[in-house]
């Protein structure tokens, strides 16, 4: 009996040792071969090239960058651009998804049918095809001189121009950060069970809201460019449109694609959440005399969100990964800057390592934070009623 036990143990040990040895041999062999191949091209392995100037310029820039900037700045720019379009894309996809989900669950069969058609069309066509289509559409809009205009905005082949504020970029970004932080705080305050039961919870929420608003306004005021009006309206000057905010077709096509395609998926997830909400909950709310709007935003929506948040988190991670499609329309996302750097600098192994590490960190951080949120707001014990 003992001998059989030890022999099984010994076999397990041997198997694991062999497995580990093979894995190490494959990784080590690849690394050695990679270094040899790089050396044959006259490139030595190392990250020193990150401090070299790139010598080329890129299209979409959130931070200052030109051909004299370094590779590390370029990669930082790419990560920022990815996060930027990812954040807007996920929010937009959520809005679209919520609207479609409400359309499909509101009990109106016409709207249900329209929502179904939407989901079936846009879910069954690859995202890249949709993004390329929107890009083709946006770049074929009329030139600035014959732009479609209205509401002080212009739709042109060079991008969409909307009114903006005359503030410096840094201050605008800071104001956005304050608003995002404030909204996150408010969401946590109102959805966390522990915090929403504090005696002064209502006061706290008002306080956070007011602080956020005043902080953002103050930041914007500090960042005002002197000698210019507060609002910068786009207007046609010569052959181009000046002032205002230009939304490039690259960014916009990726954003529309993410919103439309991701929205179709998210609507299905949220709809499942609405349908999973117990009928008794809604009936109880109605019998308490709550208005339809109160029933929706106090009972149905919070319960639905809690039911499907884990699935939604996966969808958000997936949508963020979809920002890599930016390369198909020339948006300078993380993957695009790595790809162009590999072409220019040749440090293939290092750059692909940075790319993979970057995605691992971003995706896992996102999943970690959202899973914490999920845990904080999850229903427990006798709250789980149907």
């Amino acid at each position: 009996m003992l001998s059989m036990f030890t022999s099984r143990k010994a076999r397990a040990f041997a198997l694991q040792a062999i497995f580990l040895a093979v894995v190490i041999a494959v990784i080590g062999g690849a690394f050695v071969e990679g270094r040899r191949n790089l050396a044959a091209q006259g490139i030595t392995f190392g990250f020193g090239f990150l401090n070299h100037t790139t010598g080329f310029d890129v299209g979409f820039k959130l931070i200052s960058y030109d051909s004299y900037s370094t590779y590390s700045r370029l990669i930082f720019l790419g990560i920022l651009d990815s996060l930027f379009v990812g954040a807007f894309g996920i929010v937009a996809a959520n809005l679209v998804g919520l609207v479609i989900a409400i359309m499909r669950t509101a009990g109106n069969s016409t709207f249900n049918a329209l929502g179904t058609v939407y989901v079936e069309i846009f879910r069954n066509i690859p995202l890249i095809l949709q993004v390329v289509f929107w890009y083709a559409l946006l770049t074929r809009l009329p030139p600035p001189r014959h732009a479609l205009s209205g509401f002080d905005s212009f739709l042109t082949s060079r991008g969409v121009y909307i009114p903006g504020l005359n503030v410096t970029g840094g201050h605008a970004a800071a104001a956005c950060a304050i608003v995002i932080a404030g909204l996150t705080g408010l969401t946590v305050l109102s959805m966390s069970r522990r915090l929403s039961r504090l005696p002064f919870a209502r006061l706290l929420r008002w306080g956070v809201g007011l602080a956020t608003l005043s902080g953002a306004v103050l930041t914007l005021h500090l960042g005002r460019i002197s000698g210019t009006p507060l609002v910068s309206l786009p207007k046609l000057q010569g052959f181009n449109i000046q002032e205002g905010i230009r939304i490039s077709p690259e960014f916009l096509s990726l954003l529309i694609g993410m919103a439309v395609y991701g929205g179709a998926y998210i609507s299905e997830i949220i709809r499942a959440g609405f349908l999973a909400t117990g009928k008794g909950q809604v009936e109880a709310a109605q019998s308490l005399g709550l208005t339809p709007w109160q029933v929706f935003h106090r009972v149905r929506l919070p319960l639905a969100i809690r039911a499907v948040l884990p699935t939604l988190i996966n969808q958000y991670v997936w949508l963020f990964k979809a920002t890599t499609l930016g390369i198909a329309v020339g948006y300078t996302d993380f993957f695009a800057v790595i790809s162009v750097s590999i072409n220019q600098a040749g440090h293939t192994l290092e750059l692909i390592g940075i790319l993979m590490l970057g995605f691992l960190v971003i995706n896992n951080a996102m999943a970690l934070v959202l899973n914490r949120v999920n845990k904080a707001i999850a229903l427990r014990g006798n709250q789980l009623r149907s």
Partner: protein
Amino acid sequence: MSVTTLPHDPTRKQAHRKRRLSRPIDMAFSALGIGLAALVLWRIFNWAVLNAVWISPDGTSKVCRGISGACWAVIDVRWRLILFGLFPFEEQWRSSLACLVIVIVAILSCLPRFWRAPRLAGLWIAGFVAFYVLMAGGIFGLTSVAPEKWGGLTLTVFIYAAGMLIGMPTAIGLALLRRSTMPVIAKITGLFIDGIRSLPLITILFTAALIMPFVLPPWLLGDKIWRVVIGFSLFFAAYEAENIRSGIQALPAGQEEAAKALGLTYWQRTTRIVLPQAFRNALPPTINQFVISFKETSLIVIIGFFDVMASGKAAFGTGDWSFAWVEVYVFVALIYFVFVFSLSRYGAYLERRLRVGQH
């Protein structure tokens, strides 16, 4: 997933109808929705059918000058390019035949009579060999065509079929390895699966196509198309392995314990008891994965393959037809739609059928 209202509940249906008709605001909304839909449909119909030009007698875009509808003539002139890419003109019958073989194999494997592992495997391997011989040539008097010349819809179908064919066994292997009782093997496999899952597919395809030549010795390199297929199948396998693993975990522990008590070996337990039931549990997410993977084949255009999207772009890209980009994109989208939609409908049918079997 499918928590829907009961379809055969007359009182509920009546209540619905009553509520809808009794509330004027609902009726107004319905009228608005129907009106809007009718308007959009009418405009699309006008564009796509009534005012459209379908053929171009002389092969140029002259017929489409000054029309207000769709110029489907571009499809009439360029459909070979979209479907077959740069495949040699006189050999294109082979490309279409190969595509047809895979589609027939796919349809056959949807029939319950083929739902045995050996039959399914045999069918797919036979179909795939036939596909490869038809496409690559070199034997039976067929002239050989290099993979660089493959393109269009056939290339998309090839990458998909090959990826699934390699990916499915890999997924099973990965799932079993991850469930291994040996900690080192389970941990490393878990790391591998989670690593791949947190990367976008495009970075994996990019690595397979452009980075692998750096880190593989030349004798192991193979053609670019095979490296991409392997990258694609690894990505599929990482996701599918998790589906299978959750299918295994959903099994009652008694199943495996009973098998152990009967003295079955690991392989007997796995292949006769665990996996068949796990597949049944994992069917809905598996079908979903198949559907998603078909759409994701379109990413190969980024690493320079001439798939149906790229060939579509080429079809309107030259100056003559550049105005007809909407028609071409709609055509390509329709191709994807037909494949993906029928796949997901079949998945829904399968789910219903299996649920019936369980009661």
